[in-house]
């Protein structure tokens, strides 16, 4: 029981940390800082994946998001934004209304979801293994798998073409 409680409380902690860092990420004036905050949030999401018995996804989350994408984003920030100039406004004038809309959205969703009772009987199951994921990917989902690799390649070439100086 204790372990259950512990794990639950760790989850809520992680969730709150993730939310806080997410908020930081969208509100911080320094773009570099907000990128770092985002990394923290992403790590938090990885933990949530572990809670959901998706260890492989957690790993992918850390490797791809934190390791690859965020590095890229930081490079882009370095290249473009004047990070240290505090005088530049980082947010536009529609903050208030955005807040209202976003929070009402959230409130509404919470309102709905909180009344949502999931069915029981989800506790006994065989854990899904990495091998099964690999097998599925190369058999049932081979076409989307190949497609995604092509998309990645296209994105690679396309981004190189776009950002090339005239």
């Amino acid at each position, binding site marked *: 029981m204790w372990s259950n409680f512990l794990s639950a409380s760790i989850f809520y902690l992680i969730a709150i940390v993730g939310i806080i860092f997410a908020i930081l990420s969208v509100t911080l004036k320094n773009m570099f800082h907000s990128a770092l905050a985002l990394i923290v949030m992403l790590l938090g999401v990885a933990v949530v994946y572990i809670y*959901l018995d998706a260890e492989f996804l957690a790993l992918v989350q850390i490797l791809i998001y934190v390791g690859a994408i965020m590095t890229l984003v930081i490079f*882009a920030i370095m290249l473009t934004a004047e990070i240290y100039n505090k005088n530049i406004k980082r947010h536009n004038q529609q903050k208030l209304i955005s807040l209202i809309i*976003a929070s009402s959205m959230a409130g509404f969703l919470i309102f709905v979801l909180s009344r949502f009772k999931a069915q029981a009987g989800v506790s006994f199951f065989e854990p899904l293994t990495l091998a099964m994921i690999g097998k599925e990917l190369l058999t049932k989902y081979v076409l989307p798998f190949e497609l995604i690799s092509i998309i990645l390649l296209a994105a690679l070439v396309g981004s190189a073409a776009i950002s090339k100086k005239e």
Partner: protein
Amino acid sequence: MIPLSHYLILSAILFSIGLYGVFTRRSAIGILLSLEIMLNAVNINFVAFAKFMAPQALAGQIFVIFTIGVAAASTVVGLAIIVAIYHNYKTIFVDEIDVMKW
């Protein structure tokens, strides 16, 4: 045991935060970051539903893998576009790029 609704509420909160970021960020990169938040919120939904509704199916996890892949691709392209815009307009603030106006 954490109920499904809590995962979903977490996801909803994250999504709304991302939405707020998209609404308010002036910098294009900031918007991109907020988008990542939203994507992650969605991914949480996928995995959570997969775990609670169809535990034997791998579809949820595999979808997330694809989503991550597509997100990576879109981020890359988006960043490239931002760099290109920066070359042309010497700014990455989207409220200064209003050529789509009437």
